[in-house]
C-alpha cells in the first residue's frame, strides 16, 4: 500500500456511492480506517456491508466518490500496481472462497507461489505455521476444501489470508453459519492475530458477541430504501458500548436483536 503516513487513514471511503445497474446499494458514505484499529461494520442484510469491504480492497469500483489507500485514490493507480499493493490486504471471504481444485496446502501457499520466489521448503514451513496459528493439524494440508467442515474452511481461509503477512485483514462475516463454540474460536483467532503483530482489521458481522469481543469502533449502515430523506446511510459510529446504549431505536434494537420497530414498519407497509 506504498509508503506510510500514520496520520492518514490507512483506508478511506470518501463520499462513495455504488450502484449495480439500476439498484443503488451505497449512497455518499464516508468511512475511515485507522492504523491498528479493529473496525466492525454492522447493519441489516443487504445494506451494503460486504460491498463496502469489496470497495475497500478495490475488488469493486465505486460509481462515484473515491477509495483511498494512505490518502491516495486507488482509481488513479495502474492495474498492476493495484494488484501488488492489494497483497498488503488479506481478505477472509464469507464462504471462505477456497479454490475447490486445490488442496488446503495449495490454497494457503497460493499467494506465496504467485507473488514471491520462495523455495518450496520455505513455503511449506510458512503453511505449517499458518495452520498452527489457526489451530488446524498438519494432516489437514492434503485435504480438498470439500472434505472440510464450515469452521475448518473459515480457518483455512484465514490461514490463506494471513500467509502473505498483510497489514490489513478484512473479515466478511467470519462467524456466519458456525456453532457458538466455533464462533468463539474465530473471535479468539481475530484477537490473537491482532496481538501477534500490529494488524488493522475490518469485520463485517451480525454476531453481537463478535462486536463486543473484537471491536475498537463500530459503524452501522442502514438500508437505503428505509432511510429518511436527507439522512446519511451511516447511522451510527462509536464504540460497542455506545452502540448498546444508543438512543436511536434502529441501532439499539439491531444490537439487541429486537424486532419491534421492524415489525411495526412491516405492518404499516
Amino acid at each position: 500500500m506504498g509508503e506510510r503516513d500514520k496520520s492518514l487513514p490507512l483506508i478511506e471511503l470518501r463520499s462513495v456511492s455504488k450502484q449495480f445497474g439500476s439498484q443503488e446499494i451505497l449512497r455518499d458514505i464516508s468511512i475511515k480506517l485507522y492504523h491498528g484499529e479493529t473496525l466492525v461494520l454492522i447493519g441489516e442484510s443487504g445494506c451494503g456491508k460486504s460491498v463496502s469491504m469489496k470497495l475497500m480492497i478495490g475488488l469493486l469500483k465505486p460509481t462515484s466518490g473515491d477509495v483511498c489507500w494512505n490518502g491516495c485514490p486507488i482509481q488513479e493507480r495502474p492495474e498492476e500496481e493495484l494488484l501488488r499493493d492489494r497483497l498488503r490486504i488479506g481478505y477472509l471471504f464469507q464462504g471462505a472462497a477456497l479454490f475447490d481444485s486445490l488442496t488446503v496446502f495449495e490454497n494457503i501457499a497460493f499467494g506465496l507461489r504467485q507473488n514471491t520466489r520462495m523455495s518450496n521448503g520455505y513455503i511449506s514451513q510458512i503453511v505449517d505455521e499458518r495452520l498452527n496459528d489457526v489451530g488446524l493439524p498438519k494432516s489437514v494440508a492434503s485435504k480438498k476444501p470439500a472434505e472440510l467442515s464450515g469452521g475448518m474452511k473459515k480457518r483455512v481461509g484465514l490461514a490463506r489470508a494471513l500467509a502473505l503477512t498483510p497489514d490489513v485483514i478484512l473479515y466478511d462475516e467470519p462467524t456466519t453459519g458456525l456453532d457458538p463454540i466455533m464462533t468463539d474460536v474465530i473471535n479468539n483467532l481475530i484477537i490473537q492475530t491482532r496481538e501477534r503483530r500490529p494488524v488493522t482489521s475490518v469485520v463485517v458481522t451480525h454476531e453481537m458477541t463478535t462486536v463486543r469481543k473484537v471491536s475498537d469502533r463500530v459503524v452501522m449502515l442502514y438500508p437505503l430504501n428505509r432511510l429518511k430523506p436527507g439522512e446519511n446511510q451511516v447511522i451510527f459510529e462509536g464504540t460497542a458500548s455506545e452502540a448498546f446504549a444508543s438512543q436511536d431505536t434502529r441501532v439499539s434494537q439491531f444490537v439487541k436483536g429486537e424486532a419491534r420497530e421492524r415489525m411495526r414498519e412491516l405492518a404499516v407497509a
Partner: protein
Amino acid sequence: MASVSLKDSEANCIHRLGERTIAAVESVGDLMLFTLKTLRWMFHRRPSASALTENMFEIGVRSIPVVVITGGFIGMVLAVNSYNQFSQMGMETRLGAVINISLVQELGPVLAATMLAGRVGSAMAAQLGTMKVTEQIDALWALGAEPIHYLVVPRFLACFLLIPMLTALADGIGILTGWLLSTQVLEINSFHYWFHAEKYVMPYDIMSGLVKSVFFGAAIAMIACHRGFRCGAGAEGVGRASTEAFVASFVAILALDFFLGVFLTRLYYVLWPGSLSLV
C-alpha cells in the same frame, strides 16, 4: 385515451427492442474487450506450465473419445448417403473424393467444434461461473493473481492449440470409417476409391479446414470463459451461463464457417488463379 395507450404500447415495444439491441451490442463489445485483455495477458506473462498441462489434458485428451465417435460416424453416414446417387450414375468410385473433401473442409471441423463446444465450452462456463458465484475469482484478485491470466489464458491456449489437432483426428477417423464402409460393405474398389480421393482433395482443402478449426477453438474458449466470468447469481446463473456458452459458440462456429469459407475460397483463386477445385 385509446390513442394515448396505443402510443404507449408502441413506445414500450420500441423501448424494449432498443434495450435488447443495446444489450446485445454491449455484450459483443464486452466480449471483444475481454478477448483483447486475454491476448494482452498472454503476451505479457507466460501461464504456468502446470495450469496449461492440466487444461490441455482436460480439453485435449479427455475429448478424444467424443471426437473419435463423431468423426467415425460422419465418415460412415457420408458413405451411406452418397452411395445411391453416385452408383446410379456409375460414379461410385468417386465416393472417396466426396467423403474426404466434405470431411476435411467442412463437416470434420464444424461437427468436431460443435461437439467440443458442448463438452468443453459448457464445462468451462459452468466451472468459471461457479468460481464467480462462490467468490473464488474475487479471491484470486485478493491474492494477487490476475484471474484472466490465471484462468482464461491457459484455457484459451489449450483450445487454440488442441482443437485443430482434435479436428485432424476427427478427419482421419472419418476418412478411415468412410473408406472401410465403402470398400468392405459397399464393395467399391479400394484402388479407384483412393485414386479419385487423391486427385480431388488438395492440401489446400485440408489446410483450410484446419485454419477454420483454429478460429473455432479460439471462439469456443473466449465465449465460454466470457460467459463464465459474467455469470449471474446462484445455480440458475451458472446453468444459464453454461447454456448461453454453448448456443453462442454454436452460432459463432456457423458464422465463422461461412465467412472463413468465403475468404479461403477467394484466397485460393488469388494464390492459384485458374486452377481446378471441387469448390
